[in-house]
């Protein structure tokens, strides 16, 4: 059912655990659905003065696909400047895992959503300009969350 890559990340997940004093946290999913993902980001400025993800960690409650997608998204995001990290799509996560079963695709979305939410809250906290597109993405995630809760 799962690819070898999924098993590798599931059995030996990268960057898992909590983080002391993270810059921001992004959490999506809910207990009733069985998947909750929490990403901790340490964001700093690089030499060019751009914000980048200096460190990233995850904590996930969920199935093998949820854990593997969390692990992969931390790999993909680590070291990236925020504007690049925002470009990570769920297709990239699926590709990095050598595909996911159709019923598990939503897990990859959840991982990318958690990253989006973390970056969104960083933008908000630091009064960074939020594009209409970004706002829309954030709203979609929020609505999806509320819908799931009911």
């Amino acid at each position, binding site marked *: 059912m799962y690819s070898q890559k999924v098993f590798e990340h599931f059995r030996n997940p990268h960057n898992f655990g909590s983080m002391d004093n993270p810059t921001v946290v992004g959490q999506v999913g809910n207990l009733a*659905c*069985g998947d*909750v993902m*929490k990403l901790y980001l340490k964001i700093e400025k690089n030499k060019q003065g751009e914000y980048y993800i200096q460190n990233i960690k995850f*904590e996930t*409650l*969920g199935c093998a696909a*949820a*854990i593997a997608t969390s692990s992969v998204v931390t790999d993909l995001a680590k070291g990236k400047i925020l504007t690049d990290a925002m470009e990570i799509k769920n297709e990239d996560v699926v590709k990095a895992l050598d595909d996911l079963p159709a*019923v598990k695709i939503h897990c990859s979305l959840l991982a990318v959503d958690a990253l989006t939410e973390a970056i969104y809250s960083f933008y908000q906290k630091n009064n960074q300009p939020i594009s209409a597109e970004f706002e829309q993405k954030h709203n979609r995630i929020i609505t999806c969350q509320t819908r799931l809760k009911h």
Partner: protein
Amino acid sequence: MKLSTKSRYGLRALTNLIGQDCSCSVNQISQNEHISADYLEKIFSKLKKAGILKVERGVNGGYSLNRDPQKINLKEIITALEKPEFVCPDFCSCQSKSIWQQVNTSFNHILSSFTLDQLSPPQKKSVYFDYAASTPIDPNVLSAMLPYFSQSFTGNTMSLHNLGTTASQVVESCRQSFASLLKVKPQEIIFTASATESNNTALKGIAFANKNKGKHIIISSIEHDCVLNSAKWLKSQGFEITQIPVDKYGHLNLDMLKKSIRKDTILVSIIHGNNEIGTIQNIDKIGQICHNRKVYFHTDASQSFTKVPIDLSKLNIDLLTASSHKIYGPKGAALLYIKSGTNITPLLHGGGHEFGLRSSTLNLPAVVGFTEAAKIATTNFDKENPYLINLRDYLIKNILKSIPDSFLNGDPKNRLSNNVNISFARVEGESLLLELDYHGISASTGSACSSLSLEPSHVLLAIGLKPEQAHGSLRFSLGRFTTKTEVDYLLKVLPQVINKFRQISPFKS
């Protein structure tokens, strides 16, 4: 000295042949080890020349070890592929020459002392805790079945010739055996191909035969999917379905049942031993209630048959389902008991087999196996039942003791002898299942993530669990071949597995 690529690949490829009963194709090993097939062919032909491998040509041909892997040493393998030598060339006359000769002799001696079998990976442990899903076939059942695959039993039970009659006699003797076990008449038993089919026949067959009397059917909230989905389908056909709730242990609310039976109620179908949480219903009382109100009562006894004694001469049961592959018989056989005088219509129309209630040529060896399995289970009951209960309670007690925030689902006492169902807080069942599988342990879960519908188990929700508690549930079902050593292995691995995922989880105690 460094091992050449050829030797490394040769040794890796050879480990694939250890313990194989038949020949392996080069392509197969090439895929296993990611070594190019051409290269592997060259290596194998050298190993064949050295008498380590033998080859068989033809469709099922391939390579196999020429000798016991304990009798093949590493020196001969490596020598066949390269020259593992520390000697100076012949023309050399340096002073260290004799030293190198000694080193070489010792080195060859060391290499000879290792054998091929030492390279084989340790056998992966396999511990089965999913007997409720399906049981392995009992070897005695298999030997009882084998003669019935022979030509002497070619006949269709409906044919009038000698071979047909022989087959028919076998089936009738099987029917007689079940009649004696359940204390009913032989003609009240029909053989089907699965418990799903028996349950479908019971629900749809009663519904359509009695629709002029009424269109109301009652089931419980913890039925197996095949009853639940048959009822849902009947609803789409104009029938009305009432689901009776259960208490926290999974026992049916009998008052609610009494109140729900109406004039137009035609059938009550309640599962006997629940497949997920193991709770055993009081079918005696339920039967009485239905009998008093003149409503047919069907029970799905797939899990309980031979685990709980069932004497149908004393119970008010009109229809009962039992299955072969849950009691160490083959898959593809089941039965439906239908009390004589019951108004029922068949699902399958055709040649009129099984008293016109189930047309289809019977799977004779499977019916024979099912019968043998039921006989063995009944004979062994007095020994097996206490053995399983003991092991079950030992497992439950120790899981609850060693793992914090874990709780038992279902009735602690009145449950199937082989069922253990436990919820673990702050973890999810599918990941637990896969991690246990990595450790060679087979179990099952009520988590949504393991189901195609992405819905958590309706049974666990029905006994009042929150969705997250259902997601974190595991079912371990034991059986005839489960040993205390296996249970102890599970008890050793499980706390580590739960702990691993609780560390990854964002929720802490």
